[in-house]
């Protein structure tokens, strides 16, 4: 089993990995900080943007005004949801590659040293 072995994990050099030390290390804290700073605002943004649609259609009428010919704003908003999804996907991939670099760095410098370096 992958994760049920307890704490006798060993790094390449043979000594046990102190995950708490890795967790407390500056590079790891920075990774967590950067991730949070990125993920939390974007998640709040897309959830708000998404729920605005049913809230506005349920409690107001102004999305029913025409935008282009017979296409009303509610359709424009609905399509904007698709565009938003694809744009956020693209942004995420770009940002995630910097997280990958940070993570690889942590694996190389912290974990493989058993968490000794800090």
């Amino acid at each position, binding site marked *: 089993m992958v994760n049920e072995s307890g704490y006798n994990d060993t790094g390449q050099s043979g000594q046990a990995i102190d995950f708490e030390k890795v967790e407390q290390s500056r590079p790891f804290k920075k990774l967590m900080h950067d991730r949070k700073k990125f993920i939390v605002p974007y998640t709040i943004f897309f959830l708000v943007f998404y729920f605005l649609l049913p809230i506005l259609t349920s409690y107001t009428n102004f999305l029913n005004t025409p935008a282009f010919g017979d296409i009303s704003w509610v359709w424009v908003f609905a399509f904007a949801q698709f565009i938003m999804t694809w744009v956020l996907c693209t942004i995420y*991939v770009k940002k995630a590659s910097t997280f990958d670099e940070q993570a690889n760095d942590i694996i190389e410098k912290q974990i493989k040293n058993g968490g000794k370096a800090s």
Partner: protein
Amino acid sequence: MSPTVIILFLIIVALTLAITYWASKQTQTTGDFYTAGGELTGFQNGIAISGDYLSAASFLGIAGSIALYGFDGFFYSIGFLIAYLVVLFLVAEPLRNLGKYTLADMINARFDAKKVRGSAALSTITISLFYMIAQLVGAGALIQLLFDIPYWIAVLIVGTMMTIYVLFGGMIATSWVQIVKAVLLMVGMFIISFLVLLKFNFNIGEMFSEVKTATSHGAAYLKPGLKYTQPLDTISLMLALVLGTAGLPHILMRFFTVKDAKTARSSVITATWTIGIFYVLTLFLGFGAAAFVGETKIMEANPGGNMAAPLLAEAIGGEILFAFISAVAFATILAVVAGLVLSGASAFAHDLYGQIIKKGKASDQQQMLAARYASLAVSVLAIVLALFAQYLNVAFLVSLAFCIAASANLPVILYTVYWKRFNTTGAVSAMLVGLFSALILVSMSPSVFSPTEGAALFVGEPIFPLSNPALISVPLGFLAGYVGTMLSSSKADAKRYAKVKVKANTGYQETGS
């Protein structure tokens, strides 16, 4: 039934059986059986996720809903898509980094308790069975319409096919059936959409003007409010749709078929693009059906609108396109139910038998055998239930499955990865409260009780006003996880969480695991 339909139908059956035969030769270990050995590429897995996700309910149901209710039908498309942002931003990568075969494996990265694994298996089995019954009943009715064969034979055909794929080909066969189906489905969608647009001279504005007068609803057709009239009910449904996907076991299981978090991420991206394009195209199908088939004819064939897409294919592409779309609908059902069998079986064989009863000490051969027995058992159970449910209105089971996934699974997934204090009691309470509050509330809701006969399972006044209980049950699931954790005297294991946190965020794996 025309010869073209029969030929295309047989081609699909032959093709999927050939895939299964090939896959059965590749399936050597338990890992191959559950997760295709973790060897799919991001692109392959992304297409397979699309194939797993775009069920007959999406393809035929949404096209029909848009054809009959205009904008309100489109709500589903939006919710189903945005859900992938939740998967991408919060769930996919940590899940891949921590898990092995099942959702319970991932939660077990923090807790060894059997009751946690047991609760996770219970919610997985419940979700998979509900989803499968809805799919099989829908499939039976649909095949009955398309091929003019009795319901019970239709259910048996689909049931036998799904059992064969999973039993012999495991995840490798299931994945490739899903990939083939996704490609066929997208081709079909593009052809119909192209023909519809051709009819409107590739002018979207003209299309909107045309459908504005095409239905009995007139201008109201293009406005929200034809189907969903109760604000809280609409919001509750939208909540279940957007949060449910990230807790659906058969979708989560797909992330274990790739080698690492980076590949998991790229598969979400592929899936999000494919699924997004698909849902944009549902609009052309729905509008096309409203304009060129007409409400009356759609309702006559099936009051739920499920025949809108095939009828549209017939109206604009003739017999051949009708046959092709029918065959695609059949392939769609097969791919989705196969994925569901596999996720249900993994909860039985891996979680309940392998880890709880055998305490993780079963040999690979025993595990494989257990997995196959469990697949067979899950299939038979689903087929029997579907045969009894023929005359019941079970369409709500799909959104109920999403609701349970959002209420029982998602809180635990998020707490496991992101909350240091979270403990065993919290995990069990979140899952059980989420699961049972969704079940109890729905059993008192308008989905189960309706004053009109035939509109729901029972005749009567609903006690609970919302058709989909997500608005109440999702917060309850999160709350139960929090309260359970705080009230319990058991301390969270800081060392264990440090390890989970580091692994989840860096993708570090011990060598040899």
